[in-house]
C-alpha cells in the first residue's frame, strides 16, 4: 500500500497532525494500535483527571464548549472529547493496526504493520512520550517481600497489598498517587527527587492561565536558555480536582505522608536515601517563587494589579531537620514500591538511525535529525514549553505539517520557520 505520509498514533497529536495534512490535501493514513486515545483508555489510573483546566482543552478546529470551563476532565471525559475530535477530523484512520517496524527505503519509509505494509515519503511519529515506565535499575535489588508497581499498571489503591507504600518520585503522578494511597489506609512514604512545585491557583487564576498570558507556555525551543535541560524538567506538581486544590509536599505532610530523600540504592532489604532532600525542596521553592515573580511583574507591567487578587507567597516546604537515610523495608512493613519516576517513549520498532545513546530521538523542534521526512510530535518541550499539553498540539502540528509540505515539494531538507 502507498500513501504520502503515515501518522503513527491516533491520540490528540496524531489527530491534530491529520487535521493539518487534510487541510493541505496531503494524502495520508493514521495508524493506531488500539482505538483513538488508546493510552488514555487503557494505561491510566481510575482517579486521574487532566492537569489542565477545561477552558484550555483545545485542538485545531475544536474547543471545549461544556458548562464547567474551570473544571478538569476525568479520563473518560477526555476520551469522549478526543473521540468527538476524531469524528470532526475524520482522518483516514486504521485502528487495531500495530506498527512493528519503520525503516528507510528508496522513496522514503517502509512502515510494517500487523495488517500490511505501507510505503510513504514521510512519517509523523505521534505515538506519545509516555509509553513505558522509567524504572531505575535499583528496582532489581528490592527484596521479594516488596512488590514493584509502575503507574502504567496501577489503577486504584485496593489493587495494592495492605501495608506501607514507598512512592518514588513527586511529580504530578507521584503526589497524586501518594495522596490517594495514603487515604486508603496504606501509610505512604514519598521519596523526593527533582520536582517542580506549582500552586493550582495564584491571584485568583489557574496557574495554567498565568503561564499562557505571560508567554511562558509559548516559549520556543530555539529561544530557551537551555532546551536540553528544559526537556528533562519533570511535570509540575499539579492535580486536576473539582475543588481546584493545590497538592504539594506540605499538603501531603499535613495528611501524614512521610518525606524522605531521593532513593539512592537498595541494599540488604534497606532503602538508602540521599541526604540531599533539603536542597531539592529549596531549589523547587525558589523556582516556584521565580515563576510567581514573573507573573507579578507581568501584571504590574500591564497595569492590571487591580484586576487580580494581591500577590503573595506560599509557605516554604516543611521538612524534619534530619530526614531518615535508611529505611528497613521489612521492619517498617513497606510492601509496595510505586515507581513514579517518569515515562519514556517506545521506539523499539523504529529502525531509523535517529536515536541517541539513551534511545531519544535526535530532532530539531520535531524534525528528526539526519532522516529527511521523519517527524515527531507530542514530546516534552518539542517546539514550545506547552508542547506536551493537549493545547500544545495545535501550533506544533501546524509548524511540522508546514515543514513537511515544504519538504515534499522541495525534496530537500529545509529550515524550520
Amino acid at each position, binding site marked *: 500500500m502507498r500513501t504520502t505520509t503515515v501518522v503513527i498514533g491516533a491520540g490528540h497529536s496524531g489527530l491534530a497532525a491529520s487535521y493539518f495534512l487534510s487541510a493541505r490535501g496531503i494524502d495520508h493514513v493514521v495508524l493506531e494500535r488500539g482505538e483513538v486515545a488508546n493510552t488514555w483508555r487503557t494505561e491510566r489510573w481510575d482517579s486521574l483527571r487532566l492537569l489542565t483546566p477545561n477552558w484550555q482543552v483545545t485542538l485545531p478546529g475544536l474547543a471545549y464548549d461544556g458548562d464547567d470551563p474551570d473544571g478538569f476532565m476525568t479520563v473518560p471525559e477526555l476520551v469522549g472529547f478526543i473521540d468527538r475530535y476524531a469524528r470532526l477530523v475524520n482522518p483516514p484512520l486504521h485502528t487495531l493496526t500495530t506498527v512493528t517496524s519503520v525503516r528507510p527505503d528508496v522513496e522514503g519509509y517502509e512502515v510494517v504493520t500487523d495488517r500490511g505494509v505501507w510505503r510513504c515519503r514521510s512519517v509523523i511519529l505521534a505515538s506519545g512520550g509516555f509509553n513505558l515506565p522509567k524504572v531505575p535499575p535499583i528496582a532489581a535489588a528490592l527484596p521479594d517481600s516488596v512488590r514493584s508497581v509502575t503507574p502504567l499498571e496501577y489503577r486504584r489503591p485496593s489493587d495494592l497489598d495492605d501495608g506501607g507504600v514507598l512512592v518514588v518520585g513527586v511529580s504530578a503522578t507521584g503526589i497524586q498517587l501518594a495522596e490517594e494511597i495514603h487515604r486508603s489506609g496504606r501509610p505512604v512514604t514519598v521519596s523526593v527527587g527533582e520536582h517542580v512545585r506549582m500552586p493550582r491557583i495564584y491571584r485568583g487564576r489557574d496557574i495554567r492561565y498565568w503561564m499562557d498570558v505571560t508567554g511562558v507556555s509559548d516559549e520556543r525551543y530555539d529561544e530557551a536558555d537551555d532546551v*536540553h535541560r528544559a526537556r528533562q524538567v519533570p511535570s509540575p506538581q499539579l492535580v486536576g480536582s473539582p475543588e481546584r486544590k493545590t497538592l504539594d509536599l506540605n499538603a501531603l505532610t499535613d495528611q501524614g505522608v512521610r518525606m524522605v*530523600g*531521593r532513593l*539512592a*540504592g537498595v*541494599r540488604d532489604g534497606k532503602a*538508602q536515601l*540521599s*541526604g*540531599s532532600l533539603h*536542597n531539592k525542596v*529549596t*531549589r523547587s521553592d*525558589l523556582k516556584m*517563587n*521565580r515563576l510567581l515573580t514573573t507573573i507579578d511583574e507581568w501584571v504590574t507591567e500591564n497595569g492590571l494589579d487591580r484586576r487580580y487578587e494581591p500577590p503573595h507567597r506560599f509557605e516554604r516546604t516543611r521538612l524534619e531537620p*534530619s530526614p531518615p537515610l535508611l529505611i528497613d523495608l521489612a521492619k517498617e512493613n513497606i510492601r509496595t514500591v510505586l515507581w513514579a519516576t517518569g515515562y519514556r517513549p517506545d521506539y523499539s520498532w523504529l529502525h531509523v538511525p535517529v536515536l*541517541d*545513546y539513551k534511545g531519544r530521538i535526535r530532532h530539531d523542534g520535531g524534525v528528526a535529525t539526519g532522516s529527511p521526512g521523519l517527524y515527531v510530535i507530542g514530546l516534552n518541550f518539542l517546539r514550545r514549553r506547552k508542547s506536551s499539553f493537549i493545547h500544545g498540539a495545535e501550533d506544533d502540528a501546524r509548524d511540522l505539517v508546514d515543514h513537511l509540505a515544504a519538504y515534499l515539494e522541495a525534496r530537500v531538507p529545509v529550515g524550520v520557520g
Partner: protein
Amino acid sequence: MSTGDINGVDTAHLLFARGVVGDTPAAGDYTWRASNEWVHGTHSKTQIDGYFGLGEERNHKGTYEFEADHPLEFNAEDNAATPVEIVLAGLASCLTAGVAAVAENREIKLRSVKATLEADMNIGGILGADPDVRNGFNDVRVNYEIEADDTSEADLEALVAQSQKISAVFDIMTNPTNVTVSVG
C-alpha cells in the same frame, strides 16, 4: 555565556564540554588518583599529581600534598588536620567553585564568598563503643555569606542551591558509593 570576565570561570568552555560529553558519554569518564603513605602514629601524607580525563592521562601543574593526623586528645601529635576535616574542605571547595561558576553563568559579579562548615559526629562509632552509632558524620551544616553586585537574597540563595545540584562532593557525601579496598 561568559568566558570568565566576571568571576574568572570560563562557563562557555564548560558548556562546550557538556555538548561534547552529551554526544559521546564515554568522553566524560574521569579517574581521579591519590597515593598515601604512613609517616608515624596517625600521621600520613597524600600526594596527588596524575589523573585520567577527556580520553588521556593528565597531570596537575605540580604535585600537591595533603597531610593528615589526629588531635591531641586521641594521644596523637596533631601534625595536621584530621581526615574528616579534609572532607569538609573538599565539600566547601566544591560548593564554592560551583557558586562562582553559576554566578558567572547568571552574570552575577561576586565581591566576596565565605563559607563556614560544621559536621557533627559521635566518636562512639569509631571507638566501637556503640554499634548503633555510625562512624561518620550524622549531620553536616554549611553556611554561606556572599556579597555580590545588585543581587537579591533569593538570587543568592538560588546560587547556593544550584551549586549543590552540580557539586560532585555534595553528591559523594549525600549518596552511597561502593568502595573496595584491596591489599597487595
